[in-house]
């Protein structure tokens, strides 16, 4: 599998990144190197191996359903780049 510059641009769109032409070139090279290295996993036959999703086995227990003081409205908006007293503000989405 080889990563083309077109692939890099497509993936950048998925990742919500804008890349310069130079970065596209660099990343295509880097990703080919790194993914090429990763191909060594194909030496292993894993047909009968289950994917490992939880590295430590533990039982999930539910918390008690009790109300707790959440982060205050004011605190939640404190780090917002743009907000009024109630909401985060974003550019107009609906034309």
């Amino acid at each position: 599998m080889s990563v083309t510059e077109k692939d890099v641009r497509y993936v950048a769109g998925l990742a919500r990144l804008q890349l310069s032409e130079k970065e596209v070139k660099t990343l295509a090279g880097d990703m080919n190197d790194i993914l090429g290295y990763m191909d060594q996993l194909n030496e292993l036959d894993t047909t009968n191996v289950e994917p490992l999703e939880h590295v430590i086995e533990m039982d999930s227990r539910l918390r008690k359903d009790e109300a707790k003081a959440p982060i205050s409205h004011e605190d939640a908006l404190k780090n917002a780049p743009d907000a009024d007293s109630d909401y985060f503000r974003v550019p107009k989405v609906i034309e």
Partner: protein
Amino acid sequence: MTTLSIAEVRAKVLSGELKLRDVVEASRQKIDAQNVEINAFVYTDFELALKQADEVQEKIMSGTAGKMAGAVMGIKDVICEREKPTTCASDILAGFESVYDATVIERLKAEDAVIVGRLNMDEFAMGSTTEYSRYGASKNPRNTRKVTGGSSGGSAAAIAADMVNASLGSDTGGSIRQPASYCGVVGLKPTYGRVSRYGLVAYASSFDSIGPFAHNVEDAARVLEVIAGFDEMDNTSSREPVGNYVETVQNPTKNIRIGVPEEFFGEGLDPEIKEGIEATLKKLEDDGAELVPIHLPHTKYGIATYYILATAEASSNLARFDGIRYGHRTDKDAMLDELKAEEEDLKKAIKAADGAEKKELQAELERMDSALVRLYKKSRTEGFGMEVKRRIMLGTYVLSAGYYDAYYGKAQRVRRLIKQDYTDAFKEVDVIVTPTAPTTAFDIGSEIDDPLQMYLNDVYTISANLAGICGVSVPAGTHSNGMPYGIQFMGDTFQESKILNAARLVEMLD
């Protein structure tokens, strides 16, 4: 004074020999004198620290002080502290102040630790040298031309430069143990789930763990004892009882079974480090330990497996940085102007074109970003550094349609094989010994342009994160190049007592 252990500080305060405020002052002086060069701290608040020191002083004198009284600490800039900047060394979080304390911070404060500031790191903990930081590289106190290791380089350097007597870092693929080795200090990565991750900015959630750095094994044990344990704010934190780590370290057992995996002592390992570790093991054997040759056959697949899974998780975790709720947002007007100009250019081009080209341009116009999507893109592009972008790109790629099974699914299966290697090995041995890193700290700038080479530095530490087990690095010697190197002990899940015990035995050889 900042070389004294937590217990020594406490004892000297109680006997009247020292005031805790003087230790905090000593920390300030060290940082004032050396931080310009070492660049370990990225933020300090001594006004608050001195106030806390006076309060803890009172408590020590009245016999009501908590377990951490005597600790003067720094915190890696990836762990949230209320009303303190928490930037993860990233431009995207420049100016961000946390609105709550991470569970580990809450616990340290409750036990009377004094926290003096925040420590440098690779951006979002992605890196092995602390060079990928918005604050610039940290420098190794043993030789300032050398890297500190990473990503918790500031946390390791702050100890090595005697700026504080304990610090917190995070370890996703070796980010505590490797800088501990490079800087000549003790660093411990707990079992996954041993310490709550609530308030740790996520890099790769199935690997991330918070752990201590210290001058000595006992202090590392003391910090761990306080921060470990179940937390209802993190449902991956374990209910397994927390051990008496300090007691273990104070009365270590000498007749332990140490597994020596052939795979960690082969090609790529600096011959002097190999010799030094073998000499250390010989001494432990003379003192009563049993050395057991073991095999961990899937070791060589660790790096590939890790960088698939960790980047995949990172691409998902870092999706939250979009310039809406917090963090950097691009200039909105400039962004709207740019978008408008692009649209006009396209429309002009469509007018001038015909046939297939016209169709293609029309399709491009249809696909154009909305203002909101462009806001996300520009905010993220301006805010993230190149290594973070690289990992987001890799992670997005391995998760994208058509490649998911080939990369992510495959890596999850190999992760199980690696975990099984360790489960089998720990049926026979108490701990597994390895070098912490294949080399000593290298020159700043020497690997920054070769990402794959950079990833290979994690070869000996990464398995513990893949298997979810614990590991500790303790100084084992000094190379003829003048730089320190560490020895690593890995233990089975929740066997922190055993690795601390082994680390203490090495420390006692000095």
